[in-house]
């Protein structure tokens, strides 16, 4: 729930309670009942002492270090966790499981880089050149090589098979790619929403009412 990554906590808890940032039409639904319930539940976990003591300030790196040192039992972490723990000089036996859910269908938070072409009124020839580039890049063999080199999770089935085959521990991560949702970063209000939900979490940690805070944020963003 930190200034840098608190939107991830919001995403995990709301998505896995059937809520989220937007509805199927792409409209903001920050103060939905599912969101209010999810954030109240998350704050309840903190207040009951089930989590790290200072979620507004502990970064994921603090938590990953503590997890690697065997000091905490469970973390939500990205697929770089095994490397991070090994680089930190720690040795800990752990397993990977999907995010707990209240809806029967676990959702992970995906972060992706995008190839983008601006709509500049390209000619047929130019559009064909763009297609050729993408076909070349996403060629199964070439893309699999690229994915293995970068260490990211793949966006194609062939890439997923290559990653799972190359490293047994990555297979569990590849399995969850299909259940990932992504932040609505293409919407113009995203920067304000991101900081807004973090502010809601932090103020809720200080004792303010979650519904009132989310109502205010929704009114501020969606008008």
């Amino acid at each position: 729930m930190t200034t840098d990554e608190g939107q991830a906590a919001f995403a995990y808890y709301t998505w896995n309670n059937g809520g989220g940032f937007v509805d199927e039409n792409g409209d903001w639904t920050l103060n939905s009942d599912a969101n209010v319930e999810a954030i109240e539940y998350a704050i309840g976990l903190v207040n009951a002492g089930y989590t790290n003591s200072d979620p507004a300030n502990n970064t994921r790196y603090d938590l990953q270090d503590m997890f690697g040192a065997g000091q905490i039992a469970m973390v939500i972490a990205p697929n770089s966790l095994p490397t991070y723990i090994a680089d930190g000089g720690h040795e800990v036996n752990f397993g990977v499981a999907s995010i707990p859910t209240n809806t029967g269908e676990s959702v992970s938070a995906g972060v992706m880089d995008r190839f983008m072409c601006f709509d500049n009124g390209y000619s047929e020839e130019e559009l064909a050149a763009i297609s050729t580039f993408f076909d070349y890049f996403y060629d199964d063999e070439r893309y699999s090589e690229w994915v293995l080199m970068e260490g990211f999770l793949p966006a194609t089935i062939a890439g997923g098979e290559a990653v799972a085959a190359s490293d047994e521990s990555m297979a569990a991560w590849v399995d969850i790619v299909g259940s990932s949702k992504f932040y609505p970063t293409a919407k113009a209000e995203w920067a304000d929403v991101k900081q807004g939900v973090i502010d809601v979490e932090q103020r809720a940690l200080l004792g303010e009412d979650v519904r009132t805070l989310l109502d205010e944020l929704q009114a501020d963003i969606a008008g």
Partner: protein
Amino acid sequence: MKKKKILRAAGPYIWLLPSILLMTVFILFPIFEVFRTSLSEVSKAGIIKGFAGLDNFTKVVKSSTFGLVLKNTLVWTIVVVGLSTLIGFALAIVLNNEFRGRKIARAIVVFPWATSLIIQAGVWKFIINQDYGTLNTLLMKLGIISGNVNWTPTPGTYFAWECWVGIFVTIPFVTFCVLSGLQSIDASYYESATVDGAGFWQKLFNITLPLVKSSLTVSTVLNIIYVFNSFPIIWTITKGDPANRTDTLVTYLYKQAFYKGRTGEAAAISVIGFLILCVCASVYMILSLRKEDQDA
């Protein structure tokens, strides 16, 4: 003859030209740009879209967070400058006395100053952490506590720790400013005062303080500016969290500019801070220099 006269008259200005050019490029132009941005409508990408009048200032001042952040900034500046000046002054008096190991003691006082602020703040954040901090570990090993203590249970205590780190890193500067002033005081003043029967406090208030006042004025004005604008300590320890409770104007404006893309509002906050600093520093300097003239 006339040409020579003109050259002679222009001489000083030619020598001043490089400094003036540097000041214009690196000081005046950025200040002008900040003022211009604060009065402009700026897109999320940082492109100036036109004149916005005082819109950015109105938005900033109307926000409920601004009052809280301004209060934090004033508390932060007054507490850090005030206490570091008091402690630094006392330390300078101690270090001005002859004693064994004085050189080593002076070198040790410089350490916090010589270390990067980010490192200092990072180390203190590590010391006070409830879960793995060294303060808890040390106290547990000494048998003083039996379980981890939460040293930062509220935003207020977090802010108090940040103030302490600010004081800790500011003390050396004050100490050395005052020490340089103390070393320029002729020992005969104290000898005469001692002969006249003056005690420690009388010598302190009637000799030491008046004679180191100019050094203290310099260190205080510079500290007000440095501390008011200080970013690394708060950013490293809390990033202004939770919910802006430990933000000062500088960390707040950084978030507005680089987390929310509100460059115009960030520039407005910067201008407000600049004006507050100008007023505070000027008032302090005028008051202290006027008093100095009266004393003289």
